[in-house]
């Protein structure tokens, strides 16, 4: 009989982009977003950078960002976004999105895991890392999202 047996390649987890997440990626709860803080003007922007985009200074340092912040503005996407999006599940509108402002003052675009009615400016939110999609090689791509901070205890 000459059937070949295919060896399964182990699945890897990869970040959604290089320079945006702390490593290692395990355990998942320890992952933080990376930002770049300027030692001249104080601006903090998302991702590891070599220059300060706000003032062009070369005096920058890469820092892990805080996990919590507030909604600065928000909207709800009512349509499936254009190709090439690659989420594993069918992309089901309505999809909440916000500008989130973290305690360092940095602002970033994020999906918000909540019902559209819950969105409001000032809502306290916290970061989660989850599988966003699969890449071309079958790896799980880890993506950040924010969700309302749970009130009270469990």
């Amino acid at each position, binding site marked *: 009989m000459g059937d070949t047996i295919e060896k399964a390649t182990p699945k890897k987890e990869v970040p*959604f*982009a290089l320079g945006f997440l702390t490593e290692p990626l395990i355990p998942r709860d320890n992952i933080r977003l990376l930002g770049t803080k300027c030692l001249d*003007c104080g*601006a*903090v*922007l*998302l*991702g590891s950078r070599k220059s300060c*985009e*706000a003032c062009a200074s070369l005096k920058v340092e890469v820092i892990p960002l805080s996990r919590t912040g507030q909604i*600065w*503005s*928000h*909207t*709800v*996407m*009512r*349509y*499936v*976004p*254009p*190709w*090439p*999006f*690659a*989420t594993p599940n069918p*992309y089901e509108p309505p*999809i909440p*999105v*916000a*500008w989130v402002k973290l305690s360092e*003052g*940095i*602002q*970033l*675009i994020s*999906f918000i895991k909540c019902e*559209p009615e819950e969105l409001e*400016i000032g809502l306290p939110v916290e970061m989660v890392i989850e599988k*966003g*999609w699969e*890449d071309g090689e079958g790896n799980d*791509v880890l*993506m950040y999202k924010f969700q309302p901070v749970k009130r009270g205890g469990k």
Partner: protein
Amino acid sequence: MDNAIIAGVGIHPFGRFGDKPYTEIGRDAVSMALKDANMDFRDIQAAFVSRMYLPATSGVKTLSTLGRTAIPIVDVEAACAGGGACLRQATTAIVSGMYDVVLALGVEKMPRGFMDPRQLYDLWQCHAGLTQNPMYWAMNARRHMYNYGTTIEQIGKIAFKNHKNGVNNPYAMFRKAMTMEEIMNSAMVCDPIRLYMICAPDEGAAAIILVSPKVAKRYTSKPLILASCSHRVSAIPFYNVAYYTNYETGNPPITTTSAREAYEKAGVGPEDINCAEIQDTDAFCELEHYEQLLFCKEGEGGKLIDDGITEIGGRLPVNMSGGLICKGEPVGASGLGMIFEICLQLRGESGPRQVEGAKVGLAQSYGSMGHVTVTIIKK
């Protein structure tokens, strides 16, 4: 340094034209401008061509249909501000003394449906699905409503005004007036922005021929003065397509920086502007641009539309052409389409959408990743 003079203007209507190649769309606009400037293509000494969704060397491919005359031809891209950026390159070529006759052409033939997000967004944003341009406009509107009490009705009124104006613009794609009910009940795209408050991508071209003052009389009996042409790219922060991070540095909006520069160079203030064509990719950004262009105080953009100031017949008519909401947005051509309308207005050739006695006009375009251009033209 002398100002450049506008000697000829031309346009190909904005809309959808099936299989008509972009080279012909562009050629039609150039031919109209050449006729308007009483010259032929051999008079053009240099050309700048604004486009974004066309292949490399689109400028050469378009202009060579008129002839290969060994002139320098450079393609310019600055997203939706490409037309204004292109005009600025042409202006610089004239006022530097290097050329006497320069063409600024904008041409675009956009694919149907959503624009390919990979042109504007990083790949991870595409894969995640964070690529709907309207999400930015919607969040800007939401924040402005939170800060200043601006209402969705005020935003709707701007769409209403522009749809009404577009009826009288033979070069616009959409020429049907809409009721406030139709606008306010149209499909929600990104809360709170609805479908009839947003422009559509399409096809078109606009051409402006600039000449130096010393040769102007040879070509035109109705010269217009290009009093200033500012192009700036935003510092941090800019809350627009397609960036994913910001920081409140206290920098003013880039439209304001660009406008101040243009006003100063032209020796005028916002109170001297008789008519304006400004970016209304969505109806909210027109409102925001009223404030950023210093037509009114910060936060008072809603009051300007409530008081009818920006209607044709008001103190400062805005988007007499129907704006991008009616013209659609052929990205590379859009900014030059605004210039075309201002020129018609200053010449008294705008028919039923004419602003009486217009002598000073302003055009502003705003593009992805923070491009802005502000142009002031005088009779």
